[in-house]
């Protein structure tokens, strides 16, 4: 059962080949047998999952099933889940039982989906390797000496090892696309504002966006259809119609104009990764797509601008963790200031503290214009680069990451080298565009991802372009040997 996609599982449930309870038990057993090594889940919510599955089986029997009814999912531990621990990968929230559901969780519940558990992640989504989690690093199912990427590393590893058919993630600077690339999954980061951020623990509010890890673009279309839409509870969510994302999957890509930004194929790109991207481009050429070289001239400013905007917003957002209303509180505080400082100092890990420090500095009196405002202006230039490019092309393609997965521990002592592993994904967040990563080959048995970027709210186009590639290639169907 675990090699099936969401679409195939839905068909199996509908035909009575298996029940949701059987399916859910199967995944829970797989998690018990395999997750010890991978550490992809922080919480396995088996009781809730089985109750939801039982309910789903009744709904199916009554002929009232929707597309996701009875399908098990893993949810990133950044989404608040009513009555279930929501840690965000942090000691700060190790004791936090969320008192309400995030809108994303509510959408899955309303669709009759089953929640297997909450997945491991970099602390407060700050990291690119899933090594900053309070709950320990997640391992890459393709080779456990390697990182799965981050920050949604647990969501990626869980699906790569088929410990869930699909999962949710969040992407602030590449946190869905980068782990999807490193774990051989289809990762979708929708346009900023497409999916509600309500109940999704905030890191950088002007960049954060929820999305999906799936085996196929078709599955991503099914999930996005449930997740997308206006939410009155999120003032930045956008009132755009939600199309049927599956309706356009089968359109051919003949005549599709694809831009290849020269800045994304420059120094720093691994030679073998570049070859796999070339192979993917050739497949698309066979399907009739046309390629042109384009330029996104302000690309080199995206990492610098990001490392002001994200820490500045993080320092502001994380000021709510003060040891007073919920979360970690230090022992025996001697006064209020001691309570704040020690609760935060003891509750947050190193990378989170580093980013709070950078952000507090950038926002401190006298520095706002030089840093945050300057970075917001750079964002405009980066967004303008994309707007210009989309006047000539339908989509943009590039590698998702400059290299395949790196080893656990390899970049731990050097935050800046870690930051540059997101060099091809960050600009998309700064501009707020939708982006995907699609499996396109292997280097030494480690996966490589092709990034596809589309104009605002053109998720249907993205999914269509990815789906067409998956009709003529089988990279996305490959599973690590020990998890087959």
């Amino acid at each position: 059962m675990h090699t099936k996609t969401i679409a195939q599982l839905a068909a199996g449930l509908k035909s009575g080949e298996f029940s949701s309870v059987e399916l859910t038990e199967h995944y829970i057993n797989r998690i018990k047998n395999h997750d010890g090594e991978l550490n992809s889940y922080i919480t396995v919510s088996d009781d809730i999952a089985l109750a939801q599955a039982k309910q789903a089986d009744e709904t199916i029997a009554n002929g009232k099933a929707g597309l996701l009814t009875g399908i098990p999912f893993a949810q990133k531990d950044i989404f608040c889940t009513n009555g279930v621990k929501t840690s965000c990968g942090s000691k700060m929230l190790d004791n936090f039982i969320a008192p309400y559901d995030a809108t994303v969780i509510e959408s899955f519940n309303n669709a009759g989906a089953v929640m297997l558990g909450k997945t491991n992640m970099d602390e407060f989504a700050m990291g690119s390797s899933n090594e900053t989690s309070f709950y320990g690093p997640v391992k890459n199912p393709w080779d456990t000496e390697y990182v799965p990427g981050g920050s949604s590393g647990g969501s990626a590893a869980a699906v790569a090892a088929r410990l869930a058919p699909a999962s949710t993630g969040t992407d602030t600077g590449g946190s869905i696309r980068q782990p999807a690339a490193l774990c051989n999954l289809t990762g979708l980061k929708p346009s900023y504002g497409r999916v509600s951020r309500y109940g999704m623990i905030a890191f950088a509010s002007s960049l954060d966006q929820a999305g999906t890890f799936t085996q196929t673009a078709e599955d991503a279309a099914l999930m996005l259809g449930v997740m997308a839409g206006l939410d009155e509870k999120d003032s930045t969510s956008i009132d755009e119609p939600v199309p049927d994302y599956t309706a356009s999957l089968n359109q051919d890509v003949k005549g599709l104009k694809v831009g290849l930004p020269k800045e994304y194929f420059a120094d720093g790109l691994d030679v073998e990764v570049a070859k796999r991207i070339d192979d993917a481009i050739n497949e698309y050429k066979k399907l009739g797509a046309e390629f042109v070289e384009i330029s996104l001239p302000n690309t080199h400013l995206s990492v610098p601008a990001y490392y002001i905007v994200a820490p500045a917003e993080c320092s502001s957002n994380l000021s709510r963790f003060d040891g007073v209303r919920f979360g970690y509180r230090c022992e025996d505080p001697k006064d209020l200031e001691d309570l704040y400082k020690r609760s935060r100092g003891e509750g947050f890990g190193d990378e989170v503290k580093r980013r709070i420090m950078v952000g507090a500095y950038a926002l401190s009196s006298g520095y706002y214009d030089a840093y945050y405002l300057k970075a917001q202006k750079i964002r405009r230039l980066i967004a303008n680069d994309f707007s210009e490019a989309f006047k000539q092309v339908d989509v943009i393609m590039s590698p998702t990451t400059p290299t395949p997965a790196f080893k656990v521990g390899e970049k731990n002592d050097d935050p800046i080298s870690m930051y540059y592993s997101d060099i091809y994904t960050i600009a998309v967040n700064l501009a707020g565009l939708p982006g995907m990563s699609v499996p396109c080959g292997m280097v030494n048995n480690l996966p490589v991802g092709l990034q596809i970027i589309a104009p605002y709210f053109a998720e249907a186009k993205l999914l269509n372009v990815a789906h067409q590639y998956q009709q003529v290639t089988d990279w996305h169907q490959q599973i690590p040997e020990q998890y087959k």
Partner: protein
Amino acid sequence: MEKKDIEQIANLARLGINEKDIPEYVTNLTNILALVEEMNTVNTDDVTPMAHPTDAVQRLREDVVTETNQREHFQKIAPQVEDGLYLVPQVIE
């Protein structure tokens, strides 16, 4: 970036940091600020800052109560409460 800068920023952020970690903060923050220095290679005098990717404006709503009072529910997860109030160390003598 010096020791006293780190101490001042940590104080602003109400973040307790260990004395022994200060040299590492000095190095890391210095490096990160050097990295973002690249922003100054372009002139942005005439550029409008981007606050929302699609330049959406704040949605307004009627000023009506839509949330129910769930104080007890929310206070169940608080470190320390008494009579519906959050407790902190004494602030005023």
